[in-house]
């Protein structure tokens, strides 16, 4: 039983990792907390859901559409909102994204009603793998592995490509990066887009087993914040580790203590960790 729950927790943790790595990128490069991150996820889920519902596209394909959608959403958010708030105190960017999250959530409520919606009859629906006495539902498994792969790709881009080096340079010192001929405006734009892409892909895959509703993003964005802060400033491996840990703690405490206390345990763990390491696990 313990292993079953632990594996379920880890699978959830991998999805958290993808959501958190998008946030981590934005935070690491721009020092902006994107409050609307969960709402991007929610809209990505709706894109995938409607494609599946109206056009019979499987989430295994429609993640591309929701990824592109959220990339554009991120770019637009940067162009229309974040760019203008960077001159003020760092709080104003956060509050502007808070306004955005409120707006997006209620637009979804207005357009799609508060009903919980779930995609049925997808390719993987109801299929599962048995490993001894452990059951692995295929939709969760594929989504989580996919999420993990995307996290690794993002990490590879940051560490090994010229674009990634430019992003790192911008994160370290904006004006020095500009002197080296890096167009930091463009980097910011791209980073916001990439952050959107991450949640978009996660959102595209999730509707195969998680119900979509306008409030779905709230919890995800809170957990993503905690992952990023627990992992350390802009560190993707840190966010990954923290996300796995959070998934594990959430599942285990939900089973062994009580379901109502699972998030108390998650946030309590976070507070304990930052008390010991004030800049997160991988922070410096």
């Amino acid at each position, binding site marked *: 039983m313990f292993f079953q729950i632990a594996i379920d927790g880890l699978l959830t943790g991998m999805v958290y990792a993808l959501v958190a790595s998008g946030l981590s990128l934005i*935070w690491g490069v721009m020092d902006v*907390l994107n409050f609307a991150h969960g709402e991007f996820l929610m809209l990505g889920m709706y894109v995938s859901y409607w494609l599946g519902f109206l056009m019979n596209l499987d989430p295994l394909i429609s993640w591309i559409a929701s990824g592109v959608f959220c990339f554009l959403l991120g770019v637009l958010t940067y162009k229309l909102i974040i760019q203008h708030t960077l001159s003020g105190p760092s*709080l104003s960017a956060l*509050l502007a994204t808070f306004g955005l999250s409120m*707006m997006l959530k209620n637009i979804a409520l207005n357009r799609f009603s508060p009903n919980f919606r779930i995609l049925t009859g997808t390719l993987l629906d109801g299929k599962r793998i048995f490993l001894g006495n452990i059951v692995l539902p295929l939709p969760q498994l594929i989504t989580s592995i996919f999420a993990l792969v995307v996290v690794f790709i993002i990490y590879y881009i940051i560490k090994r490509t010229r674009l990634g080096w430019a992003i790192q340079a911008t994160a370290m010192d904006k004006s020095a990066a500009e002197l080296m001929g890096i167009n930091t405006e463009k980097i910011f734009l791209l980073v916001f887009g990439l952050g959107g892409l991450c949640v978009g892909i996660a959102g595209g895959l999730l509707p195969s087993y998680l119900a979509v509703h306008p409030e779905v993003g709230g919890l995800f964005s809170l957990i993503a914040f905690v992952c990023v802060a627990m992992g350390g400033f802009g560190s993707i491996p840190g966010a990954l580790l923290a996300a796995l840990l959070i998934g594990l703690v959430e599942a285990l405490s939900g089973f062994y203590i009580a379901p109502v206390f699972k998030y108390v345990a998650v946030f309590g763990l976070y*507070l304990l960790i930052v008390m010991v390491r004030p800049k997160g696990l991988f922070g410096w």
Partner: protein
Amino acid sequence: MIKEDRKKQDLFWYVLVAILILIPFIPRVAANSFTQHVFILILLYASMSQAWNIIGGYCGQVSFGHSVFFGIGAYGAGMAIVKYGIVPWPGIVIGSLIATVVAVAISYPCFKLKGHYFAIATFAIVEIFNRLFMVWYWLNGALGLDYPMLKVGWKNFVWYKTKIPYYYGALILFVIIFGIVRFIERNRFGYYLKAVREDQETAEAVGINSAFIKLAAMALSAFLASFCGAFFVQYNFRVEPPMVMSLHVSMLFVLVTILGGVGTFFGPLLGAMILIPLQEYTRVYWGGLGSGVDLILFGFLIILIMVRQPKGIMGLINEFQNYRNRKRRRIISTEAEIN
């Protein structure tokens, strides 16, 4: 020059309080209880945001956890009336003491964190408290506390037919909290706060015990916040965890302060004067349909304000004053040239 500015500010403050005392006598306000409701909320949120401003603005520690203290204050008054059937006052006092103790206990470890790390830790604290209060049987859990019918008057701090006494209650709260902040602003403590905000290391180098200053500011801020919570529940006759202890509530206090001007004396009032009517009137005109149109508009307006004026309204006013001063100086210098 500074002294002159202060005298002007003093005069402005007294005139403002006098105007606020006279507002219920305006016939249009006296006849319309919704207008009174908006004025009450403006005063309440201005006071609450000023309480936040002590730690968030003057001391520079941006906390999103103030809904916890607001909620504890609300539950203090609520428990006294609903569970124990007595007047709210002892509950308010106990609630405020508990809020202060909780604030110190939480903040002592959290003040090690900086910037966004501190902000996220306070998010986590709000969520923890929210979930604990939701299942806490003694506090009626998610059902919340519902007020029974009570005897009207200042003893119970409850009125049903009129809102005017509530207005004066909120005004008393407003004058006390703004008065305390005004006192602090000119006091040694206020300068310590600003020193810690500007540069903690330098402040420590000149002999300020920054950890103590931050804790003291947080304790004071939470203490005052709990009174606002108590007022809220007395006005609302009902309290449940999501109503007082959620991120949304915390955000509203921060928004009001940032919008008005963070770390300024009149900022919270200006912010509340704009944000609260916006919230209430959009709710009244578009909220009844249950379609979220009011919140779409509200969110859009928040974005608009943050994009157009990231430094708040006080930033705008300061710019205007600088512009005027420069003009005046130019006139003086040209006069000198002529002579």
